[in-house]
Structures are given as structure tokens and as C-alpha cells.
């Protein structure tokens, strides 16, 4: 990266690509060419910058200027003003929501200030489709160091010493896992990368694979060296086409450079990686299911033990790690275990990537040291709640996790604290909810998900979750009785205790945590037939306020089902039997004459 004077980095993550970042790249290149600057300024499409809320993002290097919400039409101005005349395009700079001042570079944005990037170190800095750029940032030096200076045992010891724990949800010590796999003798062993990312609303793993695929490949090779495996497999969802494409390119380039294959870096070490596709089943993220799926079977779990480290893929010792876990490995080898284990809390070392989403100002991908509090994440990095509404809950751990509230905001985030608070780390989805979100409906949403995704092999999960869903459905319709809450709780415990795999063992968590933290809200649905958040449609009723209605007919015209009647200049009437509670009338009415009860 020396030839050019300046770089224009355009975010090529899924979110920004959905907002035309492809055409932005094209337009920028074209504008440069018309000005004859194509040899001085390079346009690169990188991985996700993380600040998805204000995408598409264009970053100018070396001055770090951070343009947000760029449109293809803005490209001419960026080139003309910034590149040619050296003046920043103010209207595209990020505006500090507090003092309304433009912030010129990303280093001064609250969103980035508290972040430490280890797993995401290259995302948004390199072209993921060019191995040279990865190498220029110390890429494959960790593998070289392992192969030439360290014994396999040294590698395992380094990872153990670092305190790294699995980022896929369970938090199992990675070094220990590698050690067990290394000790099990076999003619063939396998290194597996779990890129199934089933948590709906989470996109950490995909962003790493899209933004820095080589980091995962290199770490898998290191793992292979440490445990004596020559074959790696990446299990990735077929729904991630961009990540798959970049992985394929990365694999090809790594082989071409002799970084994968039969004689890696001339040391005689052999290792290669294949891609296996998932086909949309959440349970396949569970490691035994994942292994069955890779064998071409239905992705159903089996009882552990035996653990994959003893009997995994095709019955051979197999090490399964998550994408983000691997993304930490090379940094640990390069900078040392003692650098890594100084970051974080006593029992959770390093950083964690979160996909911050929901009713929050700065939706995006963040990486913070373990021990950062929820308050710092939501209100400082996340910029607080959208539209000035009140914070109600944050859901972590996806369908296996729970909802945390105001009282948990100052809890330092780590594996053990989140568990103690009734949720879990999970893979890193973090969904923020405001006063308009009903917690009963939220629990129902997750149960709907688990019912759909339960593989059906064991009855507590197959039948029990369905019954839980039905109970919640009754509550949201105002048809439940108070005894149902006790039934709900009892059944949750039975399902947790008796299910075969992690899916059923954790699926009641969203219910238990909302029962604990939002008991009153459940009660309101049952005894008052009211949804305090105003989300449960069956409990809502749209009515016209007589005093305010001027008879303008706007509501009747916008109603999609013809539920509103009334003559011009007369008070209108909403027929509750026809009304589908879409809210269109309320939105249209200029006189506050329609209310929800």
C-alpha cells in the first residue's frame, strides 16, 4: 500500500451494499479517472466499519475523514472538494448528536472511542479480496512463527495462558479444548470453524468473514498445527453469499501463496480447508448437530459425551470453534498471551464483538473489552435510545438469553456476570428495546423461533416449547389466568432440565428472565386485559375521540379494510369487528382524534 497518496475506503458490508455502496465505488473511480487521478488515489471496498446506522460509509485515508450516508450522487463532490481542493465536505461528516458539531475523523466519535479492536482489527482497513493487504498488516506472520519457532505444545500453552474463551456462546476455554484434541491420537483429525451464526439479529461472524477472511484461515491452520490435523472445514450458512464468495477467494489466494496446501511456507506442514454449507437450521450451530449436517445428515444433536474432541466428524477427533474465537488467535500469537490476558476481567479475557441493534441510535458492530458496562455500550457507544424514548430492556444471548433491565446497566459485561444476571453472553447479539416493546410479546417472539427451529428429536423441546408458546399466546390475547404464570414457570424448568441439547436447555430463558424482570407486565395482560406497551394487537382498540374529530374523512380514505364510516364534517366511527389495528388511521389523523385504548 505504498504507491498511492490517498485511499478512499468504501464499506462493503452487507448493510452498506444494500444501500448502493457498489455504485459509490464505481462513481468514485469514474470521477478520479475524469480528473486523471486514478494513479494517485485508490478506491477500495473493505469489510464492515461497524457504524451501520449511518451507512454507507466512505473513509478517506490517511486523514481518517469519515463520511456518512453517502449517496452515489455525492461522489463527484467528494472528489472535487476533498481530493482536488483539499476541503472536507461538511454536510457528509458525522454530526455529534449532542452539540451538533461536525466530527472530522472517526477517532473522535463516541462510537469508536471506547472500542478496542482485536477480532475486528482489519475490518474496514483492508480489501478482503486481496491477500497482499492482509500480509501487509502482519498477516500469516503468526502462522510462520508457530511453524518455525514454536512446538505444537507451545502453541496450546500460549492459547491457554491467554485465557481466551470460546466466543460462540458457551465460553469454554479454547486452549483447553485444543489440548484435549491434541492429546487424542488418530490417523486423521479435523479443525472446524462454526460460521452458522444462528442468532437472528446478530452479524458478527459474517462481518469478520466478509471483512477479514484470512484471519480465520490462518488461525485454523495454527489450530491444525497444534493438534496434528491436516484438514479444516468451515461450516457456513448458505444465506451468506458475500461471506462465502470472499472465503472462496481467500482460500484460492492462500493456496496460491503456499499458505495452505501440502508444504506450507516450506516447512513440510500440510493443511487445507474446505467449505461446507448450512441450509437454514438454527440447531446446526450446536456442535454435534453441525457435525452431522457436515456428514450430509439431518442436523440433529447427539448426547455429549462423546465430545467432538474425542469423536467428531466421521468419528475422528474434531476441534470446533467459533469464527470470532479464531479471529483472536493470530493476535495472541503475535503479541503474546500476556498482552491479551491483561485486557478484560479476571475470568473473561480480551474483547467481545457485539451486534448492537434494535431501538438504538447507533446500530452497528462494536468490539469492547470484557468488563465494559451495558450502560457504556448502550448510551455512550450506542448513542442512547432512538427518538428520545425510554430504555426498557436489552436482550443478550439471542433465543437462549434473557432480557436485562435498568438495574443491570452498570454490570460489567463478561461471561459470568451475564449468566448471574439471568441472561448469557451468547454469540454477541444485543438488541435494545424501548417502552413501546412488550416483553410478553418479545418472549413469544423467541418461543415462536424455538418452536420453528426445534429439531424434534427430544420431546421436552419439541412438545414443551410449543405448549410454552401457546400459553404466551393466550396471555397476549388476554385469555389467560393467573395460574398460567405458575404453569409457565414450572414448564420452563422441566424443559431446561430434560432437553437433549443446548437448544431446549436454554430456550425457556427469555420467558424466565421476563417473568423475573417484568412480572407486572404479564399481570397487566391477564388481569387488566391491557398491554402496557401497546404492542399486543388483540388487546388494542382504536377509537375516535368525538370532540377532536372534524370529519375530514382522511382516516376513512386511508383505512385499508374500510372499517371507518362517517359523512363529511361528521364524527367518524371505527367498526372494531372489521378493524385490523394497522394504525394507519392514527398516523394519518392531523387532529389527534384517533386513540388506541
Amino acid at each position: 500500500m505504498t504507491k498511492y497518496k490517498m485511499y478512499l475506503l468504501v464499506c462493503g458490508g452487507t448493510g452498506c451494499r444494500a444501500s448502493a455502496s457498489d455504485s459509490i465505488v464505481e462513481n468514485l473511480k469514474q470521477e478520479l479517472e475524469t480528473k486523471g487521478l486514478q494513479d494517485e488515489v485508490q478506491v477500495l471496498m473493505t469489510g464492515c466499519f461497524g457504524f451501520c446506522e449511518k451507512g454507507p460509509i466512505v473513509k478517506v485515508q490517511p486523514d481518517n475523514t469519515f463520511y456518512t450516508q453517502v449517496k452515489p450522487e455525492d461522489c463527484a463532490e467528494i472528489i472535487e472538494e476533498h481530493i482536488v481542493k483539499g476541503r472536507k465536505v461538511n454536510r457528509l461528516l458525522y454530526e455529534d448528536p449532542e452539540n451538533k458539531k461536525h466530527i472530522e475523523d472517526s477517532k473522535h466519535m463516541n462510537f469508536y472511542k471506547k472500542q478496542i479492536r482485536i477480532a475486528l482489527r482489519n475490518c474496514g482497513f483492508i480489501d478482503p479480496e486481496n491477500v497482499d493487504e492482509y500480509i501487509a498488516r502482519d498477516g500469516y506472520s503468526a502462522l510462520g512463527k508457530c511453524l518455525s519457532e514454536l512446538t505444537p505444545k507451545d502453541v496450546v500453552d500460549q492459547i491457554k495462558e491467554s485465557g481466551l474463551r470460546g466466543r460462540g456462546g458457551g465460553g469454554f476455554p479454547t486452549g483447553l479444548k485444543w489440548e484435549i484434541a491434541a492429546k487424542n491420537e488418530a490417523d486423521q483429525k479435523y479443525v472446524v470453524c462454526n460460521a452458522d451464526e444462528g442468532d437472528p439479529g446478530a452479524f458478527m461472524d459474517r462481518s469478520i468473514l466478509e471483512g477479514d477472511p484470512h484471519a480465520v484461515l490462518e488461525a485454523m491452520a495454527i489450530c491444525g498445527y497444534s493438534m496434528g490435523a491436516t484438514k479444516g472445514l468451515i461450516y457456513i450458512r448458505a444465506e451468506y453469499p458475500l461471506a462465502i464468495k470472499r472465503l472462496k477467494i481467500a482460500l484460492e489466494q492462500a493456496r496460491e501463496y503456499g499458505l495452505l496446501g501440502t508444504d506450507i511456507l516450506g516447512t513440510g506442514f500440510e493443511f487445507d480447508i474446505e467449505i461446507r454449507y448450512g441450509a437454514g437450521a438454527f440447531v446446526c450451530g450446536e456442535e454435534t448437530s453441525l457435525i452431522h449436517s457436515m456428514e450430509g445428515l439431518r442436523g440433529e444433536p447427539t448426547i455429549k459425551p462423546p465430545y467432538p474432541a474425542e469423536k467428531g466428524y466421521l468419528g475422528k477427533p474434531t476441534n470446533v470453534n467459533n469464527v470470532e474465537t479464531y479471529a483472536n488467535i493470530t493476535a495472541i500469537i503475535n503479541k503474546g498471551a500476556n498482552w491479551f490476558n491483561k485486557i478484560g476481567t479476571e475470568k473473561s479475557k480480551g474483547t467481545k464483538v457485539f451486534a448492537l441493534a434494535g431501538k438504538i441510535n447507533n446500530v452497528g458492530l462494536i468490539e469492547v473489552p470484557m468488563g465494559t458496562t451495558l450502560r457504556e455500550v448502550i448510551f455512550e457507544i450506542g448513542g442512547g435510545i432512538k427518538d428520545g424514548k425510554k430504555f426498557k430492556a436489552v436482550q443478550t444471548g439471542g433465543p437462549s438469553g434473557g432480557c436485562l433491565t435498568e438495574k443491570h446497566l452498570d454490570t460489567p459485561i463478561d461471561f459470568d456476570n451475564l449468566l448471574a444476571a439471568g441472561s448469557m453472553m451468547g454469540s454477541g447479539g444485543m438488541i435494545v428495546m424501548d417502552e413501546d416493546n412488550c416483553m410478553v410479546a418479545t418472549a413469544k417472539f423467541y418461543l415462536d423461533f424455538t418452536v420453528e427451529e426445534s429439531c424434534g428429536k427430544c420431546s421436552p423441546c419439541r412438545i414443551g416449547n410449543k405448549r410454552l408458546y401457546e400459553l404466551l399466546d393466550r396471555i397476549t390475547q388476554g385469555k389467560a389466568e393467573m395460574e398460567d404464570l405458575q404453569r409457565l414457570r414450572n414448564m420452563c424448568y422441566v424443559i431446561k432440565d430434560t432437553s437433549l441439547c443446548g437448544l431446549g436447555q436454554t430456550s425457556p430463558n427469555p420467558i424466565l428472565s421476563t417473568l423475573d424482570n417484568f412480572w407486572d407486565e404479564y399481570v397487566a395482560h391477564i388481569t387488566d386485559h391491557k398491554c402496557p406497551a401497546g404492542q399486543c394487537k388483540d388487546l388494542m382498540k382504536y377509537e375516535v375521540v368525538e370532540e377532536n374529530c372534524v370529519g375530514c374523512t382522511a382516516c376513512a380514505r386511508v383505512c385499508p379494510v374500510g372499517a371507518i364510516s362517517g359523512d363529511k364534517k361528521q364524527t367518524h366511527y371505527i367498526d372494531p369487528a372489521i378493524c385490523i389495528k394497522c394504525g394507519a388511521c392514527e398516523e394519518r389523523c392531523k387532529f389527534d382524534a384517533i386513540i388506541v385504548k
Partner: protein
Amino acid sequence: MSSIKVKLKEQDLNKIKEICKSFNNEEGELINVLHKTQEHFGYLPAEIQEVVAQELNMSVAKVYGVVTFYSFFTMLPKGKFPISICTGTACYVRGADNVLQEFKRQLGIEVGETSEDGKYSLSCLRCVGACGLAPVVLVGDKTYGRVSAEGVKEILAEYQDK
């Protein structure tokens, strides 16, 4: 799961056989074979599954078991413009359900169905990774962000004359 009757042509048969062969007719490659086959035909009706079973030397029941296990595989053809609504958590908390209901109403079909003229089909998926744009709707490969129930009409209008 219901399926429609399909008559496979000679060339279709050959295509399936060719796909199976490219994976050495190995039973363990079933999922990869199904991915490739669905990529080619758009869906996996019973007739295709029978051929795959024969080629990989396994029972049709096993193939059917795998096809119905994974939501990515479908036994029904998709519409000319397949519409997918993201019902991941981020989209859900920002109102994806209202959008879904509106699509159902406008098209008169349920999730998993295709409109009678074969133009639209409706499905849900979980997180497309564009949570910043929630709620998200995909029509074919095109992504629509920050969709509201009111915006549904506009989206459909784009495809009306296509």
C-alpha cells in the same frame, strides 16, 4: 408438505445425474448435491428427490428427511419475484410483523405460498445482516430498508408491470 406433480425431461434427469456425479455419488455429499440441484431447478419436488436418492444409493425417505429438515430447501417453486421479509430480532423490534401482515394482505397469500399467477412468493428469513436498515425486505436480490406497512404498496408497484 404438499408437492406438485412434475414430469422430468430427459435433459433434467441428465442434469441431476451430472450433479450427483460431480460429488462422486457419495451419500455424505447429499446436502451439497441438494444445494446445487436447487440452484439449478429452483426447487426440489419429490420427483427430483427420487432421482437423487437413486443416484446416491440411499432411500428416498432419507433424502426427504433432509430436504424437509432444512428451511433453505423448498419443495414448491418460488414466484418470479420472491419476497422475503426479515423476521430477525432487530427487524422484529422495529415492526417487521406489521410489514409482513401488510404483504400477506396485499398479495392474499400466506408465508410459504406463491400467488396464483406465479408472480410473487412470500417467505420469512432470519437476519440478512443489514440490521441497521431494519425492518428489511428482500425482493429477489434487491434489499429494501426501513420498510413500513405503508411502504409495502410502493414496493409492489415497482414490480406490477414487470
